[in-house]
């Protein structure tokens, strides 16, 4: 090694490489942060669409206060009040472990411009009970809504309505 000129350049390049690694790491970190926050925003938006959709389907179902009738229930139990267009009711137990999710987008049900899948399932009718001093029966429905079946945000719950005898 009889010439040592050029070492300053080598040192400069090594320092630069080190700085570049730090810079790239920071940018990668920022990319992940941005991806995370945008995904969070997207998820929350989907969540409220589904939650709002459930609210709408519950109100729609409440208008069927005497429907299905006991005769209809006996003939076709469980009775499906409504179901997704071209779809079947997904088998989603309350633990959220869905085994069938082939419900497709509904044609006219949406929250503002956001379509969602929906299905409402009749689950049963109670024995006559006293509600506010009157004899009534409680009708149980299961309701399901989801956005974007491939990457689904799903909402499911039971609700009940009472009807006079």
């Amino acid at each position: 090694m009889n010439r040592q000129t050029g070492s300053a350049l080598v040192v400069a390049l090594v320092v630069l490489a080190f700085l570049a690694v730090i810079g790239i790491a920071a940018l990668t970190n920022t990319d992940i942060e941005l991806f995370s926050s945008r995904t969070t925003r997207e998820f929350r938006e989907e969540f409220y669409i589904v939650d709002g959709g459930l609210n709408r389907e519950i109100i729609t179902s409440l208008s069927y206060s005497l429907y299905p009738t006991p005769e209809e229930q006996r003939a076709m139990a469980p009775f499906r009040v409504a179901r997704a267009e071209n779809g079947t009711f997904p088998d989603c137990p309350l633990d959220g472990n869905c085994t069938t999710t082939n419900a497709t987008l509904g044609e006219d049900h949406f929250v503002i411009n956001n379509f969602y899948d929906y299905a409402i399932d009749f689950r049963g009718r109670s024995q006559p009970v006293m509600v506010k001093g009157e004899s009534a029966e409680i009708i149980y429905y299961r309701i399901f809504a989801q956005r974007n079946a491939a990457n689904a945000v799903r909402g499911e719950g039971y609700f009940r309505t009472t009807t006079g005898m």
Partner: protein
Amino acid sequence: MQKFRTLTSKQKSGFTIIEALVAVAILSIGIVATAKMQDQSIRGNFVSKRINTSVFFASGEIERRAGLNYSNATDTDNDGLAGLFDIEDNADDSTTIYQNGHEFNVFINVAEDEPVEKVKTMNVIVTQNNNRIAEFPYILRRD
């Protein structure tokens, strides 16, 4: 040792002024580029924080309205579905929230009895510096 001393004196080893200048120039360019990367990174983190904060405020507003009485969300200017995307003075309701010196505006638009009766469609929009950061649609139902 003898040989080394002879060599160094003959070869005039060390940095020439040209070499030093070139190295400094390259290093400067690199440092400026790296500083730019850091700046970009900080800006990105700020955007990310702004999105997260807006999502938090929009969610909070929806949850608050859902918890309040149904009559609490009203279409004050009666513009129905057409007015669901309004901001500033055209919105049905608004609040301003300051966080760490930054101003976030939350606008609430309501369309009553839409898309069916006994529900209200609501659109909550969070803006900062007139940029729409988060926009969440929701349907409230009557209890």
